[in-house]
């Protein structure tokens, strides 16, 4: 297995780390052009640390990727009168510094820098929160760090309050697949706010994946997968709703699929020796006070998704014939019902479709980017099917459907191992 190249810190950061020496808790905030929101995130973090961990040595890091909108200036000046907001009158032993990170701008390098600082300060626990959060509260800091300090967990995955049609790619593919593969039920494996133990930050730091596309595109998903696959103790914390600053240039769906599903499939190759023989799954502890969101009807353009699926069936058939097993393709053809203006892709057919695509990706039956991008109409067909099935359901009832899908993925796993072929050693 290839070792990761050591990461170097900026001279000024090095000096600050040496001056601090040791810390109990470290909170990292990766940023890139977040001047509008980073002030709120820093103030909330400081309040959370002061309120919940007043007697700990804490360090706050803003790892900035070369912002041009004055984000580091806002981060330096963001401060507040803690006295008015503290239950305890003890001031925290808080150090704060800003470090530019080296390498290609991107969250992975920022997070890697944070892990490196955590390693050098021998921090016992840490958390990373996004700099564009609008809904963060001081309790997030406690919920992300307390399970590590008090309960001995290594990784705290976030559990946001979501509408039943939010995060559909996670609901229909990433969650059930991760659950069936690694036997751990982490409901939102792509959450970008998380807690980590000192041991886990060292484990991450040793991985060679930092130099690959996996971490460049989907660092959050990679970290969750790496934690569950390497047997670290994982839990979840309910954080409530997540509201972020709206980004104007969002990636289109095929690109998003290429990044997310590409990362899931690549991680499957890296950890095939872990998941190949595992069966079933275990619930993951959930901390925090969980409550249900509103079940207001959401406007979803189902017709457009069904049209995309049908267009795929009409035009992408020669490509799907290479990717999918004949019986899976037949079941997908049967899933379209033009007379009833409906598409119904049953859970088992969807699970087999995903497994066929994973095997086609692994065995390079087609160019890998082609495999993933050709999944777009399949995913939209499944999403349309899910929306039509759950339109009248509450969020809780829709969640039960998602859990059932996870069980079907687990039951169909022998099909995946058959299609996958022999286990091969792949470097991480």
């Amino acid at each position, binding site marked *: 297995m290839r070792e990761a190249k050591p990461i170097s810190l900026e001279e000024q950061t090095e000096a600050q780390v040496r001056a601090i020496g040791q810390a109990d808790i470290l909170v990292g905030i990766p940023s890139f052009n977040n001047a509008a929101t980073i002030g709120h995130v820093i103030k909330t973090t400081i309040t959370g640390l002061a309120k919940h961990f007043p007697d700990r040595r804490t360090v706050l890091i803003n790892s900035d990727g070369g912002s041009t909108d004055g984000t580091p200036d806002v981060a330096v000046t963001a401060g507040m009168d803690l006295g008015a907001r503290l239950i305890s009158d003890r001031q925290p032993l808080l150090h704060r510094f800003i470090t530019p990170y080296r390498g290609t701008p991107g969250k992975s390098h920022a997070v890697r820098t944070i892990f490196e600082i955590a390693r050098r300060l021998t921090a016992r626990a840490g958390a990373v929160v996004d700099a564009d959060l609008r809904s963060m509260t001081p309790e997030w800091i406690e919920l992300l760090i307390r399970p590590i300090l008090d309960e001995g967990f290594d990784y705290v995955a976030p559990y946001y309050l979501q509408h039943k049609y939010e995060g559909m790619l996670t609901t229909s593919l990433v969650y059930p697949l991760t659950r069936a593969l690694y036997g751990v039920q982490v409901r939102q494996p792509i959450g970008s706010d998380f807690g980590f133990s000192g041991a886990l930050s060292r484990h991450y730091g040793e991985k060679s994946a930092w130099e690959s596309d996996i971490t460049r595109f989907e660092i959050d998903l990679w970290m969750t997968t790496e934690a569950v696959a390497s047997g670290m103790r994982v839990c979840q914390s309910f954080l409530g709703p997540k509201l972020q600053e709206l980004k104007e240039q969002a990636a289109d769906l095929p690109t998003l699929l290429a990044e997310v599903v590409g990362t899931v499939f690549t991680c499957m190759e890296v950890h095939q020796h872990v998941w190949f023989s595992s069966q079933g799954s275990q619930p993951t502890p959930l901390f925090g006070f969980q409550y249900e969101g509103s079940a207001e009807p959401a406007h979803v353009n189902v017709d457009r998704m069904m049209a995309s699926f049908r*267009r795929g069936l009409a035009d992408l058939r020669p490509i799907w014939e290479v990717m999918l097993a004949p019986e899976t393709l037949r079941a997908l053809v049967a899933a379209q019902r033009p007379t009833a203006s409906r598409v119904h892709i049953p859970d088992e057919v969807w699970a087999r479709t995903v497994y066929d695509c994973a095997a086609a990706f692994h065995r390079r039956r*087609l160019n890998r980017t*082609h495999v993933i991008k050709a999944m777009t109409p399949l995913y939209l067909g499944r999403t349309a099917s899910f929306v039509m099935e759950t339109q009248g359901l509450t969020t809780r009832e829709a969640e039960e459907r998602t859990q059932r899908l996870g069980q079907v993925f687990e039951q169909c796993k022998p099909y995946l191992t058959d299609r996958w072929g022999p286990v091969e050693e792949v470097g991480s």
Partner: protein
Amino acid sequence: MNESWERALLEPLATAGTRFLQFLPNLLAAFVILAIGWPLAWALGRGVERALRVLGVDHLADRVGLNAALTRSGLKPDPCHLTGRLFYWSLLVLTVFAALGALDVAAINRATTTLLGYIPYVLTAAVILAVGALLSNYVARSTLIAAVNANVRSATALAGLARWGVLLITLAMALEQLGIAQTIVAVGFGIAFSGIILALALAFGLGARNLAKEALEHQLGLGHRRERSKDELTHL
């Protein structure tokens, strides 16, 4: 008189007969070479194919991803068969050249020498065509997937156009390599390529006005809010 007739008529016939008799062994040798070489080439081709199968090259090709690469290129994923056929055709070409050489005719010898000198160009053209065929398949697939994902109605036609565009460029390059009608090929290719670009521009302008509008709005960040208000489902 009779003698002169005999000399005029029979001597050439006698000479021709003598020459034919002298040439006959060469012709027979050429036939023998062909009669033995052709079935031998066929048998060796099949033998190589079977030997490769017995040695498990099929499985090896599958493991190293060669079969997948052939499938990706739109070819039959059977490297043993392909190698056998390549062997057969190479031996057959050698046999034909050997047979022509056995005839020992000056004109044929010159033609054979010219043909042999032409072989490097033919091989280069063949490589260009092979790479072009692989590239055209890749481009056609990429275009098809992108067009379907962009909800373009005539995705298959667009992919076909992309495939033939690449093949046309490849063909022009191969013909140029072979030195066949270079000017006509260059002019013909220029006209055909310009026509395709013009047709694409017209098709995009007339048939995909809405798509172009949406693409521009997306680039300028104008369509984002409208898109959100249309659909409240999120993927991440």
